[in-house]
């Protein structure tokens, strides 16, 4: 929970008192030095003592700030030199450009997912307003979903009609438009279609952008194949960002070794979490044994989003499985326990558990559910994501 106003005021008061003491001490120290050096320093009132001390502290802080910014400038200069050096070496340059484009691909896939879910959510909210009989009454004049849809349909029909008319009169214009579109795609997706940037850093930026565009197309095509609207467990994709992000786990109070361990990628051989629990058995009339392993550990049942960190996998598992509470940490990080309750996690309620506990391919297959559930989760994601 955040700090209340009274807590803030108390903290500020303490800071002021501490600063006063430090200023006083600095002032007396300066006075002693002045006497020893035979210099005059007139501090005849408490006010003068405080002002002089505060000035000394401020000068100290300024000097420290200058040292830090000098160090930052130095580091920046060194980084630029390393970059320039790498840029002059063709092998390093090619490897860096390739790696940057790959990073762009990953970022683009995530961007595609975010766009898809945003689109879904907006669409579903709009669809919800369309079927709401009160929408006309609650919306400003002319702004109800029905009226907006009517206008949009009219505009779209008019645009299509105009374009068709233009196409009939000027077929070359349509061809030019297609060519323009193709050129635009080529520019956005093909690294060879635009000139190499004059600087190495600029070239990396250009390749990252192209990689990102490629990634988003990849997402769009990929999501068509698996069933689109589930929009892909965007949350799962974004989780990949926490691989290597030990700061997140440090902030939860873990020691640095444990934080680094939790920031490792969740192992491919890991159990993950199961939508249909592993303990489920077939009815006695079907032999009573476990469900086929191919299903139980298959993509439609086992939840372990690709690229998720170990810590995030534990958090996800804790949130969707009320029976999972603790996990032992290995001796190499000092042992101890990961405890979901101790880092402030809560279990999801049943609907969110069903959504978050189901693997992306399963969501994707539940086609009709996609848009509505996608929108619901998109709206609640923010609230839950802040936990």
């Amino acid at each position, binding site marked *: 929970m955040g700090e209340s106003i009274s807590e803030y005021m108390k903290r500020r008061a303490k800071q002021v008192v501490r600063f006063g003491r430090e200023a006083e001490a600095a002032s007396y120290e300066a006075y002693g030095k002045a006497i020893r050096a035979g210099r005059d320093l007139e501090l005849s009132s408490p006010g003068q003592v405080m002002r002089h001390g505060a000035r000394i502290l401020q000068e100290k802080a300024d000097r420290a700030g200058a040292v830090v910014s000098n160090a930052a400038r130095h580091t920046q200069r060194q980084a630029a030199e390393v970059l320039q050096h790498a840029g002059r070496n063709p092998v390093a340059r090619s490897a860096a450009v390739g790696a940057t484009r790959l990073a762009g691909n990953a970022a683009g896939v995530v961007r595609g997912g975010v766009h898809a879910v945003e689109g879904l959510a907006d669409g579903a909210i709009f669809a919800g307003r369309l079927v709401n009989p009160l929408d006309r009454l609650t919306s400003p004049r002319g702004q109800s979903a029905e009226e907006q849809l009517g206008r949009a349909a009219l505009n779209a029909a008019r645009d299509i009609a105009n374009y068709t008319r233009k196409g009939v009169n000027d077929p070359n214009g349509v061809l030019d438009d297609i060519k323009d579109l193709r050129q635009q795609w080529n520019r956005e997706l093909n690294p060879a279609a635009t000139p190499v940037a004059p600087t190495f850093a600029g070239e990396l930026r250009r390749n990252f952008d192209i990689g990102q565009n490629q990634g988003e197309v990849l997402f769009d095509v990929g999501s068509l194949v698996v069933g689109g609207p589930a929009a892909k467990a965007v949350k799962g994709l974004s989780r990949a960002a926490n691989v290597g992000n030990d700061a997140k786990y440090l902030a939860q109070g873990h020691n640095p070794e444990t934080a680094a361990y939790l920031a490792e990628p969740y192992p491919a051989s890991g159990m993950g979490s199961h939508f249909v629990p592993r303990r489920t058995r077939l009815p006695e009339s079907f032999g009573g044994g476990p469900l086929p392993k191919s299903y139980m550990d298959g993509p439609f049942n086992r939840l372990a989003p690709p690229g998720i960190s170990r810590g995030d996998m534990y958090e996800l598992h804790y949130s969707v499985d009320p029976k999972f509470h603790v*996990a*032992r940490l*290995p001796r190499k990080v000092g042992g101890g326990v990961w405890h979901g309750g101790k880092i402030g996690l*809560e279990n999801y309620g049943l609907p969110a558990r069903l959504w978050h506990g189901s693997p992306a391919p399963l969501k994707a297959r539940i086609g009709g559910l996609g848009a509505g559930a996608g929108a619901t989760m998109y709206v609640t994601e923010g609230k839950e994501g802040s936990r």
Partner: protein
Amino acid sequence: MTLRPEIQFSHTFPDDAIEDEDDFVQWPGRNVAEALKGALQAKGYRVSEPVDAQHVGWDLDIWQGRKRLGLQISLGDADVNYLIARNMTFFLWPDVKLFRAFLADLQDILGADHRFGRIRWFPKGGISADVAPAAVPFDD
């Protein structure tokens, strides 16, 4: 009647986790699961070998006749450990009497084995919800 199938306990079993340089090769708690398996068998239950549930711990499948129960064993450290008992009888008509008897047997087993200590019983979902525990698995 309130049943409390979630149990928090401390223990003095040796740490049986096996690790390589990267991670766990065997997660801790197999020895606790084996001890519970033996004790439950002595009370007439049919019990599976401990099933590895990795970071969650170990599972035991338990039968009384054709009716199935389950026990999850999750070890944290010496003080924070959990047993989650499950009634796996037909979900539309769960055998509450059997489950109650199972919890009573579990209470006997935990009480008789000095390696278990500080037993606290929670209702279903009670650990996550941080509800107050009880000293007994059910109220009559």
